């Protein structure tokens, strides 16, 4: 069964993560508090450019021909996120810094392209000559927990959060439905389709730089298919521009 999870990274990618995490202590000296304009652990509005390595899977179900699960076997990805000024539900002092439960609004825009059919493997798709490409944008509120800073006088924070929103997506291509050798059919949104958007993230901020694990899930309303979803997960690095 293909996965949709918060931390489903195969060994080589997980190893990259550990290496990145291990390097974070050495990044601490360049993340002094005076470098960032934010107040305490709460952030001002920001735009973040996020680049990473993710795996995305588009799933669809046709009433006649059955299911299709098409992935990209992992790929480099770039997306743009907007975060509004953060507000706190709860703020409590800690040994260093504070514990914050907060919320804000987010907007995201990204693209996807899948071209490998999941057949016998949960992760690795097989090239059947199919391809599907799309773009999506979404907006909605997020709730998060943040701890930090990790060291006095630095801007190293850990955050975990979830978000829920609405948006639109447009895609076109084809996909193989049913067990291999299945039936290849065109898949086309025919314009922007509405969708629900869910995300979960786990991240370490080091000043304006962040190491981010996140999963994204799009539930797409497409009258041509019984159901269609796109899910992605992976490890990314981002740079946050505050204003």
């Amino acid at each position: 069964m293909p996965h949709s999870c918060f931390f489903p990274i195969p060994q080589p990618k997980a190893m990259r993560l550990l290496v990145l995490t291990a390097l974070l202590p050495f990044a601490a000296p360049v993340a002094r508090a005076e470098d960032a304009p934010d107040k305490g652990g709460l952030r001002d509005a920001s735009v973040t450019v996020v680049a990473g390595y993710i795996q995305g899977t588009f799933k669809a179900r046709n009433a006649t021909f059955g299911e299709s699960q098409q992935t990209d076997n992992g790929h480099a990805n770039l997306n743009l996120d907007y975060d509004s000024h953060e507000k706190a539900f709860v703020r409590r002092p800690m040994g260093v810094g504070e514990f914050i439960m907060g919320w804000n609004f987010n907007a995201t825009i990204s693209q996807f392209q899948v071209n490998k059919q999941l057949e016998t493997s949960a992760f690795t798709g097989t090239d059947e000559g199919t391809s599907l490409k799309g773009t999506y944008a979404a907006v909605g509120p997020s709730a998060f927990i943040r701890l930090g800073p990790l060291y006095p006088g630095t801007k190293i924070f850990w955050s975990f959060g979830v978000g829920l929103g609405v948006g639109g997506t447009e895609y076109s291509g084809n996909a193989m439905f049913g067990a291999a050798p299945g039936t290849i059919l065109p898949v086309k949104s025919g314009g922007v389709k509405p969708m629900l958007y869910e995300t979960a993230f786990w991240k370490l901020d080091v000043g304006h730089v962040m190491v981010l694990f996140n999963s994204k899930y799009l539930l797409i309303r497409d009258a041509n298919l019984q159901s269609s979803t796109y899910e992605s997960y992976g490890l990314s690095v981002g740079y946050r521009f505050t204003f």
Partner: protein
Amino acid sequence: MRMLTGIRFLLLLAALPALRADPANGFGLTVGTVSASQGGVASTGGSLGADAQFCLKGGTWSINPYLMISMEKEKDGSEKRSDNLGGVQFRRWVGPVYFGPQLFFHDRLLLSGGNVTNSQYGPGAGVVLGYEARGGFTVGAQLDMLESQFLNTVDRRNAVRVYLGYRWH
């Protein structure tokens, strides 16, 4: 009965006042072994982890978000498996000793012939116990329990990880 006694012991420890509790914030790395059982199949292997320790005011509790990966080999088979965790530990400190519950999300990969043949994922919970010297060296163990593919209890996995590590205060 044994588990109840253990829980009572942990509750008693948790109720004690801090005995020179002196945890400090910092990044940590661990390396160790893992022994697991899932559906009657035992596996052993190595484990690597990284965490960040955030101490609450007073120093008797800390919150430790962590990431952990393992590479295991089945005892009676050729297949390998890997269990990757992203979670958080809630550590109660009594002097340099810590213990407490943990919650995590896991992704378990079954590997055969170099290929991932299956993955299972979902939430889990457990407990952690360890010792951390002021210099930063640490030794600890954690039980990863209740790992299941969400509500599937048939193929549930339990594991013990024992590790050595260092924290940069």
